[in-house]
């Protein structure tokens, strides 16, 4: 699925070492991450976040993180966890800002569960919106596109 290993420009000095073998585990890949469960109720949101952080630390590209099912609830900026607990939404937003990540919330799943941005708020005549910075609402096609574009797609759910 992944194309042939791409030799980095700076591999000139690795004489005597099998470069291809050495790169097998380290070669950057394009990852897609799917989060199917909401914050706090299930561990999936934590596992997905920790996985994403580790992937970025290893130099991989995260093409998109797609929030679906109750996973869309990760995107509400209205959550107020106790101060000594992790803030799951802020954590996602900050990671997205730092690494320019594409956090996509499925529109159909979001509508069911009352997650909306300003545009959705107007469209449905609601009195508020709640989407957090760094998240955007879009269609399920974004998940399919991630499947097409990414070298690896990983699901986190319950």
């Amino acid at each position, binding site marked *: 699925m992944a194309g042939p290993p791409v030799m980095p420009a700076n591999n000139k000095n690795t004489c005597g070492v099998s470069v291809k073998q050495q790169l097998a*585990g380290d070669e950057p890949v394009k*990852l897609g991450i799917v989060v199917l469960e909401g914050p706090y109720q299930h*561990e999936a949101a934590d596992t997905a976040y*920790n996985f994403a952080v*580790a*992937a970025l630390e*290893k130099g*991989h590209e995260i093409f998109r993180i797609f929030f679906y099912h109750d996973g869309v609830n990760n995107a509400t900026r209205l959550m107020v966890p106790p101060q000594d607990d992790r803030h799951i939404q802020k954590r996602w937003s900050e990671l997205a800002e730092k690494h320019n990540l594409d956090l996509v919330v499925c529109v159909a799943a979001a509508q069911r569960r009352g997650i909306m941005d300003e545009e959705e708020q107007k469209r449905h005549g609601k009195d508020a919106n709640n989407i957090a910075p760094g998240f955007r609402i879009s269609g399920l096609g974004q998940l399919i596109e991630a499947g097409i574009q990414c070298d690896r*797609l990983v699901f986190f759910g319950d």
Partner: protein
Amino acid sequence: MALLHTVNKSPYQCNTLESCLQHVGEGDVVLLIEDGVYAAVKGGKASEMLAQAQGVKICALSADVKARGLTGKLMDGIEVVDYGGFVDLVVETDKTQAWL
């Protein structure tokens, strides 16, 4: 075409691990995450199931092992990996099936 299988349920609540192990092939990797790590506790009924898995590497996620007080309690042959190791497994295998 090796697969990475993630299992996140306790085998004492759910048959997810059993079903996963019935679908693994030579060279596959099973990664126990979240409540899935309980399967690897030494002496537990589920550990027998894991011991019988031939030609399959069994790993457990260290954060989940530690969080549950299972450090030092795992059966032999389990490779404990951190989140970075989880990422490596995803990259090294061809694709990932999450047994949710």
